[in-house]
């Protein structure tokens, strides 16, 4: 090795970097690029035509609606769970933390299945719901439920380690100075956790808008009615309408890029206000 001199030594040093960069290009950059090139394959005109199609617009509206319901629900739950878990001590606390993470270990398809078993036509509550003409499965409520399930842990998961580290002294001081519980929450707790909260909401929202497996089981795939954007991508793709499929997919890829940009910005600018090193 030494006889070969400096150049081969620096080559050996460069190998890990070259290897890592090839992995990034082949596994991450190329899939991203191919979405946009396939979408623009037949020019900008076709691209925007595919996006303006009524079914695509309906899918976009549904995706935004579902996220607008599911994310706030999990936001409230996440804050409540984190408050109970980090500000108080009670038996079963550790078990509760584990149960909150449970949905991460469940296949998305099973996440959809469980609601079909409960609320589907042949589900436990199916006949009762049918009598009252309430439809949950193959309708928007089912899509919301499945989305809430798969995004369940995200906000709590981000808040618990941070609020654990912050302790409860700040709130105790506020309360002992006469602040009401709500006032102490909004003026002391919330400012302390706002970036971690934003981080959790960001990840929660990305998953909510992009979820495929769970939603596909409960949606019924009715065009223009119960199709979310990811499901619409599948339908177009299976119809060999590749330009339109990738055009709709490019919207979701843009959402992913915006999410990554905001996430990196939060880590870079407010890294010390986030819980360290969490991934899911």
């Amino acid at each position: 090795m030494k006889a070969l001199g400096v150049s081969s030594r620096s080559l050996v040093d460069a190998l890990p970097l070259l290897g890592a960069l090839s992995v990034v290009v082949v596994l991450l950059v190329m899939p991203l690029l191919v979405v946009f090139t396939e979408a623009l394959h037949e020019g900008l005109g076709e691209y925007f035509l595919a996006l303006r199609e009524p079914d695509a617009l309906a899918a976009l509206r549904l995706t935004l609606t579902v996220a607008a319901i599911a994310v706030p629900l999990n936001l409230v739950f996440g804050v409540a769970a984190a408050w109970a878990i980090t500000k108080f001590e009670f038996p079963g606390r550790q078990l509760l933390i584990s149960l909150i993470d449970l949905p991460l270990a469940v296949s998305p398809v099973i996440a959809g299945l469980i609601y079909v078993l409960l609320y589907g036509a042949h589900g436990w509550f199916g006949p009762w719901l049918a009598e009252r003409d309430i439809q949950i499965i193959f309708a928007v409520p089912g899509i919301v439920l499945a989305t809430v399930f798969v995004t369940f842990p995200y906000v709590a998961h981000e808040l618990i380690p941070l609020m654990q580290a912050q302790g409860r002294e700040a709130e105790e001081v506020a309360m002992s100075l006469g602040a009401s519980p709500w006032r102490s929450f909004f003026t002391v707790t919330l400012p302390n956790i706002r970036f971690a909260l934003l981080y959790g909401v960001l990840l929660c929202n990305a998953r909510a808008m992009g979820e495929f497996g769970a939603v596909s089981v409960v949606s019924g795939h009715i065009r223009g009615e119960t199709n979310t954007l990811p499901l619409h991508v599948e339908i177009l793709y299976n119809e060999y309408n590749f330009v339109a499929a990738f055009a709709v997919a490019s919207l979701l890829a843009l959402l992913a890029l915006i999410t990554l940009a905001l996430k990196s910005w939060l880590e870079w600018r407010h890294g010390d206000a986030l819980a360290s090193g969490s991934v899911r």
Partner: protein
Amino acid sequence: MKAVLAWASPVQRPISILRGFRLTLGLSLVWLAVIVLLPLSAVFVRGFDEGWRHFAEVAFSARAWAAYQLSFGAALLAAAINAVLGLLLAYVLVRRRFPGRALVDALVDLPIALPTAVAGIALSALHAQNGWIGQWLAPLGLDLAFSPAGVVLALVFIGLPFVVRTLQPVLEDLGRSQEEAALSLGASRVRVFLRVVLPAIAPAWLTGVGLAFARAVGEYGSVIFIAGNMPYRSEIAPLLIVIQLEQYDYAGAAAIAVVMLVLSFLLLLGINALQAWQRRRQEGVA
């Protein structure tokens, strides 16, 4: 409910004057029960709706066995590949300074942010016979799309961030002084890795690989577009659940789900044990 809350009332602390324990814990428990626990328990009950015989017929049919083998086998292989690729990426991100490093660091999370259906059609387009990558691999006889190898590829994509993100903080804490000391004493690079680096990162490494494995086992969206979905060959277990549902065999769908859930929960227990080991290790170092 009241009894539960009374039982779970906080251990009395001398000066704790914070409020909202019952409200927030009650809200959390109700939400957890309605969204997660009740629906999940339905699987275990409905799986046996039509008796043990039907359960066994569906859950342990030859087609189901092939699907479990593919889902768990491909996930295991993908996790092993990610163990290597993830270590490489984490090492380079922590130890090397190069232009575009921040961009690469951000891109590592792409598989988490990109909807799985988009990943599925993108990978499938890349590796089809006329795709950017497929056209080079096809003449070599490496046809990834529409085969079990395609399943592994999709699962490698999905699992990569888990290994990188669990290893990064540990590698950062490790610093390089020990390695440099060993190197300057004449140890070879391989020996330094095996004797100095590996023991320090082993728990985090295994945890990351375990997380990637657990995520890959249940993965659906990214796989079905590239797998070709041929029964006995490239049909994953979650897809078999969907097929049972399409035939209105709820008990059958639930039966397969029971097998998958039990295996996944066992996996989760293993990962929790690994994480506890890792935490003890980190506290020991600090």
